[in-house]
């Protein structure tokens, strides 16, 4: 790893490629949205249809994205994706799993599991901290939302 990498600012070739990709994705989305807007029906200016405004917006998006694809030179705001980014992937997957289990088995078990994963695996905290924080936080959520605010969270523990 070079010194530049450790500060999160990638070399110019990497940054340029990242900029091109980052501008191409909205470009493609803009084109698709423009086609879909066209199909919704444009009406005319005195009586705009449902598709007219989305079309105006998508065209604006395509134009700006195209400008960004051409002007892809690094601005200094880009950051390299590196080994630390893997944590983010794990984090996102755990959140998706959390959402999937939430209504199926109640909030308690997924909540404790999520906290333990983030504290122990992602955060490298000690077991003591992990267990104490997970249990206390889950109890606090229960007290705040179910007992305090009387929100109907799916839960399995009843008092």
């Amino acid at each position, binding site marked *: 790893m070079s010194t530049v990498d450790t500060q999160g*600012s990638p070399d110019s070739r990497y940054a340029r490629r990242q900029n091109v990709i*980052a501008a191409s994705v909205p470009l493609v989305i803009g084109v698709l949205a423009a086609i879909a*807007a066209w199909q919704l*029906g444009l009406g005319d*200016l005195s009586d*705009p249809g449902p598709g*007219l405004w989305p079309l105006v917006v998508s065209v604006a998006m395509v134009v700006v994205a195209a400008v960004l694809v051409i002007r892809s030179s690094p601005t200094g*705001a880009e950051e390299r994706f590196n080994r630390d980014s893997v944590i983010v992937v794990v984090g996102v997957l755990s959140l998706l799993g959390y959402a999937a289990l939430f209504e199926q088995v109640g909030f308690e078990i997924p909540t404790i599991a999520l906290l333990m994963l983030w504290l122990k695996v992602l955060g490298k905290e000690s077991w003591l901290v992990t267990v104490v924080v997970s249990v206390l*936080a889950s109890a606090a959520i229960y007290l705040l939302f179910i007992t305090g605010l009387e929100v*109907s969270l799916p839960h399995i523990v009843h008092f």
Partner: protein
Amino acid sequence: MDFFSPVLAGFGVVFQPENLLYCLLGVTLGMLVGVLPGLGPAATIAILLPVTYNIEPTSAIIMLAGIFYGAQYGGTITSVLLRLPGEASSVVTAIDGHEMAKQGRAGAALGIAAIGSFIGGTISIVVLTFVAPLVAGFALDFGPAEYTMLALLGILLVTTLGTGSVAKSLLMAALGLLLATIGQDPLLGTARFTFGSDGLLDGIDFVIVAMGLFGVGEILYNLESLRHKAPPPAPVGSVYPSRRDLRESRGAISRGSVVGFLLGILPGGGATMSSMVAYAVERRTTKKPQRFGKGAIEGVAGPETANNAAATSSFIPLLSLGIPANATMAIMFGALLLQGITPGPLLVDEEPELFWGVVNSMYIGNLLLLAMSLPLIGIFVRILRVRPAILAPLTILITMIGVYTVRMNVFDMFLVVGLGVLGYLMKKTGFEPGPLVLAFVLGGILESAFRRSMRTFDGELSGFLTQPIAASLLGLIVLLIAFSGWRALRGRKPDPRKEKHGTPAERPAEDRNPERDDDRADHPG
């Protein structure tokens, strides 16, 4: 005395015990968020939106407002002690503030920042009290044509005046406008871009967008540096500035109040830009510019006063026109809508208790913050030692459960994670979420207003020129586009990373997390 009776009644609202409590809760939370680098006030307010759903509207807004201006006080602490700005609006404070800390004058820097913030904030509230009803009265006659131009001007100002690349901000604004069209057509009810999903038929809730991009996005972004340990803070010493400090900062505080108030009203201005402009103003007015960057107290007093004045005055366009001036105000807009209140020119007359309750609560909030930042500062300095590895899981948990409680809907949880990934990718590639969120909020207003105007004008675009106010606003828009075109042609800016002590006003602040850079520099490899 007609004008003053609702203002005084507002104090009655503030002094209700539960409102005082929510005010205290809000400013304390704001202080905490300001102290902890990573999570900004916008993210915190977004995360807490679902919780406020069950609170009475006035109390809820008093608390959320407290978080916003409280964070301006708290952000100073990390800037001065660690050179890690807790908030983007405290980035310039770090330059001279941390130098002062190195010379053993951290207390004086924090003290003068707190006093400046208090004065700037209070002046701003007084002016707001008189200006906001005037603006609202003026805006009562605004029709769709004026609102089209106003919303357009708001989006353009945010993209051109904001920090960072104009083209990137424009792209984000366009994406925000496009996301706002998902769901049923506002006038005809046709389903648009729903891909046959019932979950999308009502459109994406603003709360979900704000929580995803700001809340989840920032948490995911900070996950990368989760295992990095923060350096220990510098010792504080006495926080009460000497007479000489006060004398030297007097000018800076008065100039900072004016700069902050004026820039706070402007869409796209807000706390961050006003602090940078205030720093530049101080450097220009001083007789000894060489002292700047070496611990000049004016370099702390000016920006810190300005960011607080701006935080307060940015409530004016929201409460009197219904047009949010920056991303945090866009989230406040969402909070009001969530409570069934549409901010706009009618607010002062229709909801005087809410309007004056919120405005007057800021006096109390600023007093509480002054107390927290002078005698109680030690407590907040200790909080700097809380590890991000414990904080991150707790914030994500509150976010996920909060999202669920908005509509009791698991689909929204998936949506917020998706938007969080988008927010993370945007941060990594140098795009800012601010313009997107603001455009998303204004998108609905803009589309309806534009289509209604087109119907009134019978399809003639030139109809906008027949309305004097709309035409003047259009003139401003044209001027703005010409100005940014001229600025773009005048030449590219040099790489801001390379000129460490360049004019801070020219340095993009929100593009990157300064904490991470400094952190890694301390632990290479």
